[in-house]
Structure formats: C-alpha cells, structure tokens
C-alpha cells in the first residue's frame, strides 16, 4: 500500500515535532485495576508554551502526568522528553505534586523542602553550601515566601504550602515544568503569584504543563489545552481545541449545555 505524498510529509512533520517536543507521549495506557484510567493516549507538548490538561474528575489527568514521569508504571506506551527517554533527561524536568499528596506534619522547614529540589546537584553526601542556600532563598523570593524560610511546613496555609512546592520545582532549574492541580484550594493571592511565576518561566523559554480544573481561567492562563476523559478528546491551541464541542465530548452530561456554551464563548 502506497502512502500519498501529502500523507508522507504530514507524517514526517509529526515525527519532527516529536523529536523536539519537551514531552511526547505515544500510546500511553495506565490501569489501576481492571478498568484503564488512561487509554492509548498520545500527546505532543509544544515547546515554550503553557498547556493545560483538562477533564472531568477521574478522567486520568493526574495519572497521565504521573505515568509520564514514571511515578506510576504504565501498562504500555512510550514517553520521550526532549527527544530522549525520561531517564536521560531527569535533570530537565521539574514536578509539582498535588499538595494533598504529602503529610505536611513532616518534621522539616520550608528551606529544607526547597533544598530537596537541588538533590541532583547535591547527591548522596554532598555538602549544602552557601551557594545552594542562596539558590533556595532566591526561589522562595520568586514565589513570595522569602520570609518563611525557617518555618515548619505544617504552620503554613494551603496556598503557602503550594508556593513552597513551586519554589522547590524552581530550584530544580528545569526546562519542562509539570504541575498537578497547583491552583486547587489556594487563595487568590497565591493563584496570582503562581500564574505570575509560570508566565515568567514561559517568557524565559521554558515549557509548562498544568493539570487544571478551573475551566473559567483556561483562556486567561494557557496557550494550549489537552482534553482527556480516559481517552484523548482534543489537543491544540485554546482557540481551536477549547470549544463547546470538545468540552461536550470530554465532560458529557457532567456540565450543563448552558455552562459549556458560556465557557466556550467567553473568548
């Protein structure tokens, strides 16, 4: 069977995009039990832009991110980071987990959490030097948490904890930032601080991917969307992929048609 020229050139363009993409996922399937949480998903993240992963609760948004990072083991699929397997590129990826995924009573201070972001520099037994502390303090300043460096992390508000997590990711000095629900349950000041930091990262040429739940802010915050409901529903620039049709397809009956129309037309 012969491929037409047009098909061939389209295919090579796609391959080229995969080669350079900060995060290219092919055929990713993840299952916790019998039912897959993520089924045969492809994703090609656009470099230097901000992408939101959107979908209803239980649609596999976080799972997809965790599988891409090797936190959970997928049933099948291939993940490439800047054109190479993740294991060769760990130093270029920073991750912000969901705030609720850790125990904030853990006996540690804010500055120690940020220093965890420097683990790849420090190694097993490397001494923490003044230069490392300076980096950690700078990262805390960037998220507006400079004065809290000596606090025990359990004494912070939810929004402050989220900003500490972001500071830790900044300390990793990565090229690709993956954030899992960073705006969930945070105050307005924190949301503003976080989105400011993410936009600065984008201005520096970094790539940002965010699992996001607030449909109302998608247009303001992001360049691209990736809609998922176990399977991929849509992927692309907000203008073309974030529409009444794609939202209807992703959310099904879970959002009223009026809501969808309102969100989709609020451009």
């Amino acid at each position, binding site marked *: 069977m012969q491929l037409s020229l047009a098909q061939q050139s389209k295919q090579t363009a796609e391959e080229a995009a995969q080669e350079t993409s900060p995060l290219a996922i092919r055929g990713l399937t993840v299952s916790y039990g019998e039912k897959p949480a993520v089924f045969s998903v492809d994703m090609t993240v656009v470099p230097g832009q901000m992408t939101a992963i959107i979908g209803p609760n239980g649609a596999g948004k976080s799972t997809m991110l965790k599988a891409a990072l090797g936190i959970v083991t997928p049933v099948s699929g291939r993940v490439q980071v800047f054109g190479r397997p993740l294991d060769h590129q760990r130093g270029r990826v920073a991750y912000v987990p969901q705030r609720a995924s850790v125990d904030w*009573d853990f006996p540690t201070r804010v500055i120690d959490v940020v220093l965890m972001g420097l683990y790849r520099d420090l190694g097993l037994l490397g001494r923490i030097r003044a230069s490392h502390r300076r980096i950690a303090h700078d990262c805390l300043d960037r998220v507006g948490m400079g004065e809290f460096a000596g606090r025990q992390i359990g004494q912070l508000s939810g929004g402050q904890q989220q900003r500490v997590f972001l500071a830790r990711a900044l300390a990793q000095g990565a090229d690709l930032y993956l954030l899992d629900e960073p705006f969930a349950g945070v105050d307005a000041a924190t949301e503003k601080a976080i989105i400011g930091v993410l936009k600065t990262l984008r201005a520096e040429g970094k790539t940002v991917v965010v699992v996001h739940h607030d449909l109302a802010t998608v247009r303001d915050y992001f360049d691209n969307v990736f809609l998922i409901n176990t399977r991929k529903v849509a992927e692309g620039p907000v203008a073309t992929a974030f529409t009444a049709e794609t939202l209807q397809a992703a959310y099904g009956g879970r959002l009223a048609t009026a809501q969808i129309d309102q969100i989709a037309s609020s451009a």
Partner: protein
Amino acid sequence: MGSEFVTLSLTPLLIGIFAAVACALPGNFLLLRKQALIGDAISHVALPGIVVAFLVTGAISTWPMMLGAAGAACVAVVMIEGIRRLGRIEPGAAMGVVFTTLFAAGVLLLEQSDTSSVHLDVEHALYGNLESLIWLDGTGWGSLVDPQALAYLPVELPRMAATLVVVAGFIALFWRPLTIATFDEGFARTLGMRTELLGLALVLMAAIAAVAAFDAVGSIIVIAMFICPPAAARMMTNRLDVQVGWSVVFATLAAVVGYVLAGYAPLWLGMADAVSAAGMIATISGVILAIASVFGPCRSRAGAPSGV
C-alpha cells in the same frame, strides 16, 4: 562500684543501649512512613523462624536462628504485601493479621516440638534474657584492655554493636534520599530514585535490627524501641535531624534507667527480687513518651505554634 559492675552490669547495659538505639534509628523513618508496626511484626514472626531453624538443625546456634528469623521476616513482608494488595486493605491491618498469625503458629510449633533440652520458650522470646548476658571474665575495668577477658565477652555484645554500626551507617549514607522519599515519594521518583528499593532496604535494616535485638533482649524491647523513642522525639522538635538525635537520647535513657530500676526499684520497694530488665526498659520508654506528649514543645500538629 567497680569490678562487680563490670562483671554483672556493664555488658547487659551496653547490649541494651545498642539494641535500643539500633531499633530507634530506623523507627524514626518507619514512624513517618506510618509503618511503625513493621518492627512489631518482624519481632513477632522471628519466633516461628527460630523454632523452624531449631527443628531443622536440632540445636540452638546463632547463625541458623538468625537466618530462620530473617527468613520468617521475609515471608511476613511478602505476606503483608500480598494481603494488602489482594485484599485491598490498609497496611496496618495486613501487618496485624500476619504477625499475630505467624506468632501464634510459632507458639504451637514450639509446644509440639521437643525443646525441653534447650533454652527456647515463649518467655525467652518475649523478654529475652538481658540480665544473664554477664561477663564472668570481666573482673574489673582493667579487663577492658585484657585480650583474654575480652575473648569471653558475651557474643551478643559485638553482634549488637556490629548491627548498630550497619544500621546507623545505612541511615547516614542514605539520609537524603530517605528523607525526600519519606516526605514525598512521587517527587523522589521524578528525581530518578528507586523509592521501592529504598523502602525495602529500610525495612531490611529494621529487620536486621529487630532480629539481632530479639535474640539478645527479646521482642518487647524491640517493639517499644521502634515506636516510643521516635514518637517522643517527634514532640521535641520540628526538624528531622534533631528528631533522630532526640530518639537516640531517649532510647539510651530508657535502656539505662530501665536496667537500673529493674535491678534496684523492687529492693527500694521492699520486694525481694529484681524485675525483668526488658519489661522495665520498655515501660520506661513508654513513660518517656507520655512525658514528651504532655510537655514536649512541638506536640501540636498541623498548625498553631505553641501558646496560640
């Protein structure tokens, strides 16, 4: 206080301290990982392992017993994981089921086998026999530099010291990954850490400490030391390194005070006999925990600095 102390009390005291600290060190991380019961589980399942080792070899000798206990610990870890995954229940419940069942099986096995000729019974498994680990050749402080006397040190002392060195060395070497993986396992994995191997290594260290200590001092001390000193230390500070330091202090304190009180408190109270040192050490560790829970500066969780 001289020659008699060296002969009768020095070695049990040191063995008690080493055992307490060797269990308390990994206990800090197990507690933060909500796996503190694993020490409990391991020390209980050591009994059937030791009985099986005795039945196989027909003698009470150290290495088969240690291997039997270690083998039983491995079986228990696999059973706990299996039950947790297949039954989809929380780890604490899985551990509770496994270690009580295996311990009970060990008791039955012990009853059915002819162990009358040797020193192997349930009391020994529970309390150990700390008071009997005396150093007959240690006739005074001078014996500490006498090679001939040192050759007759109770074998438990160098063994427990070596165990402590191994456990402390592991925690010192892997301090940073252990801390990160305990606080935030997902993040640790994105750094490329093999967190499941690290968790297994930690449990293995706990098993080594538990089995070595079980042989020397019995399971009561093991169970108490995995939990009480770290839990009390957590109330003293909000920093992990400081917490581990406090846990060593509390474990040592419990061993020393417990040993001394077991020997002398009954006499002060007018009773004729001393009480079990293991029981007293474990009790003291509980008392320390109670005091720390009432007066410790960092006992309020999730929030308010003290006084608010």
